[in-house]
């Protein structure tokens, strides 16, 4: 590898070679003058930490893919036991043949685009795609055709990231850009009750075409049932604990709230992700959920209203179904697209939770809105930061005006204030 690196130094392909090199080895180039803090937590380590937090979710989703598939065919097991019904080879096999290709396409296409851009621009390959690449397969329905995913990844990486200048410069979270592109481009593959369980769509098409030797299977999500005001059917099928552990249909990796929670704690303790954003987003969704519950309790909407099912859903249960927990922990906390200031993070997170639940209830086509809410707040994050900083400057200017300043220090203080606030 070192030999290759030296051989290609200064050539066109150098960035591509260097990328592999730094991925495998710690770079040996160091600054030679002055004193520097040598930190081990460069961008690659940060990214790897997030990936570590995602691995349990990915493993769970491999088994859940099979579990949902067989349960939809044979019915959910009566006495559920984890080892007997969930962690089985059959389940894992379905997961492996469905999720591994998604992962491979996501990484393959995404990194290819990154490499092409690095070579064209002549700078180092950026690591930004490492996390995006694992997030993407986790937030799409299991039967998403691979070519659609490839098209969406190209779109997301080029339009969502590279046109703004690459990793660190993007306004929108690339993984969510990919998800949003898929949602708007191929809505029939992204919503409804036939996309969340492996083979559900194939079977329904075969039955429409006249096949009689197979049974239709459907995997309506919890939110899907509620959107049809069919809360009773949902409760008969899934218990609250099912939702919490993640034994429910949904996008590949969004269901296991427990594991997401553990991943979130891991990210908080390793100081990779902001606890402010997570906490405020949880608060925001609870507030919105409480408002909706309140509206139902007041009797302001009738049982027949099409929003009744979702609005009367226990406020805290919004957090354990759909993509809300996943979005809050792994997507909203993206340090590039989120708010940067501490107070800004509170506002940013709060609105993500608040809007997610609101869109979820009012979106007529698709009872989910986490990705839309996060993308919207991505756009507003710089504005929020701007006003937080302005407010800070104003407060400090006021303090400066009111303060009794000893003539000797005044220059120093003003300069210090400027340095802090600008």
């Amino acid at each position: 590898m070192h030999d290759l690196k030296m051989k290609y130094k200064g050539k066109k392909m150098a960035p591509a070679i260097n990328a592999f090199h730094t991925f495998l080895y710690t770079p040996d180039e160091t600054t030679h003058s002055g004193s520097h803090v040598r930190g081990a937590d460069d961008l690659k380590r940060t990214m790897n930490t997030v990936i570590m937090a995602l691995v349990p979710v990915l493993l769970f989703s491999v088994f859940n893919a099979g579990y949902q598939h067989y349960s939809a065919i044979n019915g959910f097991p009566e006495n559920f036991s984890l080892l007997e019904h969930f962690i089985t080879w059959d389940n894992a096999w379905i997961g492996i043949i469905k999720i591994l290709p998604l992962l491979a396409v996501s990484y393959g296409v995404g990194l290819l685009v990154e490499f092409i851009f690095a070579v064209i621009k002549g700078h180092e390959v950026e690591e930004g795609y490492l996390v995006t690449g694992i997030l993407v397969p986790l937030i799409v329905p299991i039967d998403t055709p691979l070519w659609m995913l490839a098209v969406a990844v190209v779109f997301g990486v080029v339009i969502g990231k590279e046109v703004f200048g690459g990793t660190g410069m993007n306004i929108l979270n690339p993984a969510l850009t990919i998800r949003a592109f898929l949602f708007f481009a191929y809505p029939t593959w992204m919503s409804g009750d036939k996309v969340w369980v492996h083979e559900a769509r194939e079977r329904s098409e075969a039955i429409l075409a006249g096949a009689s030797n197979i049974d239709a299977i459907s995997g309506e999500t919890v939110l899907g049932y509620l959107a049809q005001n069919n809360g009773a059917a949902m409760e008969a099928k899934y218990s609250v604990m099912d939702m919490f552990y993640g034994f429910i249909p949904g996008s590949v990796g969004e269901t296991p709230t427990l594991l997401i929670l553990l991943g979130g704690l891991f990210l908080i303790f390793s100081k990779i992700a902001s606890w402010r954003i997570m906490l405020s987003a949880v608060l925001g969704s609870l507030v919105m959920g409480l408002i909706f519950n309140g509206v139902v309790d007041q009797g302001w909407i009738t049982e027949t209203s099409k929003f009744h099912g979702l609005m009367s859903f226990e406020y805290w249960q919004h957090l354990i179904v759909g993509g809300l927990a996943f979005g809050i922990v792994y997507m909203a906390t993206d340090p590039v697209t989120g708010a940067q200031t501490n107070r800004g993070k509170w506002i940013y997170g709060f609105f993500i939770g608040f809007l997610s639940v609101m869109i979820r209830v009012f979106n007529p086509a698709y009872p989910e809105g986490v990705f839309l809410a996060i993308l919207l707040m991505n756009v507003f994050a710089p504005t929020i930061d701007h006003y937080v900083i302005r407010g800070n400057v104003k407060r400090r200017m006021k303090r400066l005006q009111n303060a009794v300043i000893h003539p000797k220090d005044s220059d120093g203080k003003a300069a210090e204030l400027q340095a802090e606030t600008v």
Partner: protein
Amino acid sequence: MGLLSKKDANLILDPLADNNPITIQVLGICSALAITAELQASLVMAIAVIFVLGVGNVVISLMRNIIPSKIRIIVQLIVVATLVIIVDQVLKAFAYELSKTLAVFVGLIITNCIIMGRFEAFALANGPWKSFLDGIGNALGYGVILILVGFFRELLGSGTLFGIPVLGDPIAKTGLYATGYENNGFMIIPPAALIVVGIIIWVQRTKNPALVEEN
């Protein structure tokens, strides 16, 4: 270009590429977003704008010495409005279905910034022949982008061109659809036009770095 002097030819050719009203001056974006989901609508819109801008520029240029400067915007508006009404009525008479697709956007040609912009910037200061060429040139520059955007949006979004299926039948699954290909619904909605225009701008400026603005 025996017919036109080099200077006159540039009046037509410049807006086609290096001074394109949409990609360089970023004018007339709203109609470019609204009606480019289909190629046919794009083409008709382009022709309508060519007519309005070509004729309008000549009319304004002929009147340029008698229009009091204080009310020139009103005079310009009257000229555009008259021409647009002519276009609208012709469309309603001969292509009723199409005029329904274009709906309010024919009327909104009046507010197309390109038209007022050319009246103000060119026709008020130049003779009729030059104004005519300038009007045709700018409208063509607008139309080229419109047709380009319409081409990609209709092809990718509906799998048709001018309403004729070119990729096969999406319901019977023939042609390309037999391989599992599907139409891209994103291309139908107006934001897609913004992205397609953005990509055109990107490609154009990459080919000709002189067009990139200094920061």
